[in-house]
């Protein structure tokens, strides 16, 4: 690992400097994570008095549990939905801004601020707009003959949380797409235009392939966002319902552990999530290496 050629010589100072960070890391990150891993192999008796080592039993129960399998499925649908909606809209907006000469900064300012709105806050706003009795969208949908009720219909609830979660993430994706588009040399598109390629052809054969590193990076970031940072969206709106139709993994782990106090199962779920984060982080860092060569 790189450092400076010359370094300061001091016996205790570097340890003092790094101590606060390490203390927080060890006490609030490492120790609890280790606890979660250990507890995932244990089972508490009904009174919480003694624990016994049960090996992989918690995991076996977990993957045989239809509710957990449902949560896995819901998470996949939700993650793909959020990623598709927020990446798609952001790319469209970034392509449009890329054409603007004078108004680009104004549009950018008007599009980036939702990043600052808390997911819980945007969840409540969308919840309000879709309120089955007084909300504006159910009112409009009713006119075309659709009876919207996210309290009863799983699909409605899923659409609602996907919209709310995507709304927050569009500005982030937009900024990275704009930066990606600006880094594509104009000469390439000009050359294609001279050779007679129209705007659509140029998009598919030049812009999109050259944007692929940005797209891939955003794909990973959006997966992480949808899987881990949307707890607030779910908790502030549907609470996993109706009938588990929006019960994503991070919500379930909270609900089973913190509300249901099922220590073994919750820990096993934590460990599964841990593996997902590790896999996504590895992919993300492998991508950073690749981008340097690109």
């Amino acid at each position, binding site marked *: 690992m790189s450092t400076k050629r010359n370094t300061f010589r001091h016996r205790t100072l570097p340890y003092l400097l790094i101590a606060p960070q390490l203390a927080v890391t060890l006490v609030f990150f*490492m120790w609890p994570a280790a606890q979660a891993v250990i507890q995932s192999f244990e089972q508490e008796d009904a009174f919480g008095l003694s624990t016994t080592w049960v090996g992989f039993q918690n995991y076996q129960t977990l993957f045989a549990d239809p509710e957990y399998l449902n949560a896995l499925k819901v998470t996949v649908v939700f993650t793909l939905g959020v990623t598709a909606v927020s990446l798609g809209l952001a790319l469209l907006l970034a392509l449009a801004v890329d054409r603007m000469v004078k108004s680009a900064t104004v549009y950018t300012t008007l599009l980036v601020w939702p990043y600052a709105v*808390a997911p819980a806050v945007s969840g409540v706003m969308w919840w309000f707009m879709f309120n089955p009795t007084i909300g504006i969208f159910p009112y409009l949908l009713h006119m075309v003959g659709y009876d919207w009720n996210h309290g009863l219909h799983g699909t409605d609830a899923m659409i609602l949380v996907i919209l709310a979660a995507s709304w927050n993430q569009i500005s982030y994706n937009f900024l990275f797409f704009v930066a990606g588009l600006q880094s594509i040399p104009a000469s390439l598109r000009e050359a294609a235009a001279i050779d007679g390629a129209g705007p659509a052809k140029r998009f598919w054969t030049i812009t999109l392939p050259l944007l692929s590193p940005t797209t891939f990076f955003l794909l990973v970031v959006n997966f992480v966002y949808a899987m881990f940072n949307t707890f607030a969206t779910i908790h502030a709106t549907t609470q996993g319902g109706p009938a588990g139709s929006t019960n994503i993994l991070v919500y379930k782990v909270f609900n089973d552990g913190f509300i249901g106090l099922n220590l073994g199962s919750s820990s096993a779920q*934590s460990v599964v999530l841990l593996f997902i984060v590790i896999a996504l982080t590895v992919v993300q860092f492998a991508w950073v290496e690749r981008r340097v060569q690109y």
Partner: protein
Amino acid sequence: MVENRRFLNLLAHLVLILGVAFVAFPVYIALIASTHGQNDFLSGLIPLLPGHDTIRNYSAMMTQGLASSGAPPLWLMLGNSLIMALSISIGKIAISIISAFAIVYFRFPGRMIAFWLIFVTLMLPVEVRILPTYKVVAELGMLNTYAGLTVPLIASATATFLFRQVFLTIPEELMEAARIDGAGPMKFFWDILLPLSRTNIAALFVILFIYGWNQYLWPLLVTTGTDHYTIVLGIKRMADIADQQPEWNFIMATVVLAMVPPVLVVIFMQRLFVKGLIETEK
């Protein structure tokens, strides 16, 4: 732009206007709802034009809160959010910049281990260790305290890497010159490193302020009494009750107040915000 096509330009404007409308619409609805009296939400359609109860709604929320759902006055929750956002952002920056300083400018046994320990925190979001972390905080007696709300969140691998990156680009000669002039490590840190990383600190501060302000899961676990509620958490408590007893005007007033500070930060510090966003993802 390669060529000028009138139709495509018009289309681009149309797409952008629709996009702006899409992001602005929920906020417009919330803003309008916060200007109406309670009776406007009983049936029919939510109001789409401003009402007359703006001052009444906001002053009632700021000074009294929503007694029916046990929510304290908003100024209290706004204060808690501000304390939390500032402690988290300043705390993260402070402990990260000194650990990056230690890692880059010193060679000491255990340096690699320390670096990897910090790196691993990237893979341990609160969501994967909810219960055990809660237990640690409870055993340390930090439930319902500002320390409990902030300290467990201030370790930061991202910030440490960012400062490490910044320090690595600072020319070696500066340190050599400082040493020849007789400056010790801390003097070098205060007089040279800190001023040189000023804009990075500012950019990071913008991102971390938003991060701290918008925390949800952690305050949900750590606060049990209303006196440490943050505003983002308070909204949820009110909305829970609202399903039976719609007080949407008050809830939406809270929603508006909860988003104003971070949104203003982004709008007025847009350049720093974009810089921070792109730097922290490297």
